């Protein structure tokens, strides 16, 4: 409908629309902008009465901060491995669901549960499963007479436990998106290829894969960005430890802000992350546009 056709109804339009916009600006956009500003200030809520301009000291510190660099590296490692695992598992699940097994919809619902439930509960369940006294994973290793690391208290294995938990929680999202993409492929394509004698693998490689590559990229992009900022499960399962071996970027910010009260410095780190995310989003939207093009022939 055209705006002009509304006539005197415009008042109602503003009444209906403005509250939502104002609310979002006040509680979402405003705080984000304030964070950018705070990043330019010295503000430790214990020592400083008010934020104080400090000549980009936060940013010079940020460039020299080895702990931050380590955090970014860990986050990147976590995000890449977790995403890879989720794409593989998700693709397998989506492909299987697409073959129309009996009870498919119920199966999909059950499979989606981990991503819908609270991340805190996911973290708790896996944290307990890996625990030495009540967990079944160490118990299984004990029965098999294999070495039993202190899973969450050893650097390498703590990362592994987090990866498992993340893959369990988020492979369903990838599966959901890929399942939708698979369902969109016209069935005649399979049939024709089969008639021409294509094997299962050829069918997958030549017919299915090209048509869902776009969606795979989209799903992987989503997961990369989210996993890079993973926080909830880290707080619950390892608290960033042992040492700083699972201190991902979000955990780094969380500690700076709420344990050391360095709000200014934490804001500067967030600004850096936002900039990085901006670039990521830009790339993501480009590939997403391409994916849409591929999905609608």
């Amino acid at each position, binding site marked *: 409908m055209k705006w002009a056709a509304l006539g005197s109804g415009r008042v109602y339009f503003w009444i209906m*629309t403005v509250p939502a916009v104002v609310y979002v600006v006040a*509680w979402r956009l405003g705080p984000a902008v304030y964070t950018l500003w705070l990043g330019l200030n010295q503000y430790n809520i214990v020592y400083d009465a008010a934020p104080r301009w400090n000549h980009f000291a936060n940013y010079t510190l940020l460039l020299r901060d080895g702990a931050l660099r380590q955090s970014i590296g860990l986050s990147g490692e976590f995000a890449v491995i977790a995403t890879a695992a989720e794409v593989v*598992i998700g693709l397998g699940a989506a492909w299987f669901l697409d073959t129309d097994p009996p009870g498919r919809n119920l*199966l999909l619902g059950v499979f989606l549960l981990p991503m819908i439930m609270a991340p805190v*509960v996911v973290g708790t369940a896996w944290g307990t*499963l890996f625990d030495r006294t009540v967990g079944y994973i160490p118990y299984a290793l004990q029965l098999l007479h294999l070495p039993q690391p202190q899973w969450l208290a050893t650097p390498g294995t703590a990362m592994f436990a987090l990866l498992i938990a993340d893959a369990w929680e988020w492979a369903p*999202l990838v599966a959901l998106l890929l399942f939708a993409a698979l369902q969109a492929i016209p069935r005649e394509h399979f049939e024709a*290829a089969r008639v021409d*004698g294509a094997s299962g693998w050829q069918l997958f490689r030549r017919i299915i894969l090209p048509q869902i590559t776009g969606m795979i990229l989209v799903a992987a992009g989503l997961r990369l960005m989210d996993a890079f900022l993973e926080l909830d499960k880290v707080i619950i399962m390892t608290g960033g430890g042992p040492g700083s071996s699972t201190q991902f970027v979000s955990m780094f910010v969380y500690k700076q802000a709420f344990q050391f009260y360095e709000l200014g410095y934490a804001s500067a780190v967030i600004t850096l992350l936002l900039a990085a995310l901006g670039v990521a989003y830009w790339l993501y939207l480009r590939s997403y546009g391409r994916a849409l093009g591929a999905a609608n022939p």
Partner: protein
Amino acid sequence: MMRSGPAGPAAPARPSPPEAGPRSPHGPTAARPAPLKRPVRPRRRAAPAAVRRRRWHLAGIAALLAWTLPPFLYLVMLSVKPERILIDRSQFLFWPTFERYHDFVASGLGAPIWTSLVTSTLGSLGTLVLAGLAAMTFSFLEFRAKTVLFLLILLPRMFPPVTTVIPIQLMLKSMGLIDTKTALVILFIGFEIPLAIWVLHTFLADVPRELAESAAMDGASLPAIVLRILLPLAGPGLLAAFILCFIFNWNEFLFPLIVTSFNARTGSVAMMSFTAGYKKLQWGALATLGVIMTIPVVLFVLAFRQSLVRGFTAGALKG
């Protein structure tokens, strides 16, 4: 854009020489099943293929369940396992005890769950009112500022929560709202407005625009159009948006952790208190809390699978 055709570059298949490519789509071999309502994958050989397919399906279902269910079953088992054999992992079979569920309220853990329930519900309802009104005008009205407003609302979806956590804590502190349910409701309303508008937008796109337009021609005012025409048709969208908002609010962890301490702590924050300090070894109580936190989610999934799937797909893709 798309691959030239199903048979085109694909598979210079071994059994058939390339020049036999453009064969009749009704191949010489396949005894094709009669066209059903839903197209069925062709089968290579009739009987054994069906059996093989069935086995393959059963194996797949087993694998899927074996991947998904163990952590749930484990939590449930831990929550009903008697205390004295709790850490004896060789005991799978035991008489379940529901003591912990009885004790749950007595130990004061009912309060966080109640807080979660109240704040998530109120927050989602608030979101629905604000987002619903905005989404309805957006859905059928064309105007110049629309893109700007739309972007303004959807832009925050790109900022992860951690970017706003510091100012929000400062804001709530200066308003004296730290550790109150009000603070949580205020936050929850704001968090999901972008998502709710987007989900409603995709659902309202199904409503034919002519309905609203012809009503406007007949002189109906905007509130009348919204109340009489859009609202009755927006039911499924509102339901999907409400469920999504509720679940996200229910699961929210970082903000409740930061703006509440004891009086208004939510279920997820209460779980956190078990990971440190003297409560660290109360595995049974922890598992019980986890199970209770998961119950609403399971109910929603069972009851509203379709809306959830659609909402999640829309939310994930366009978010």
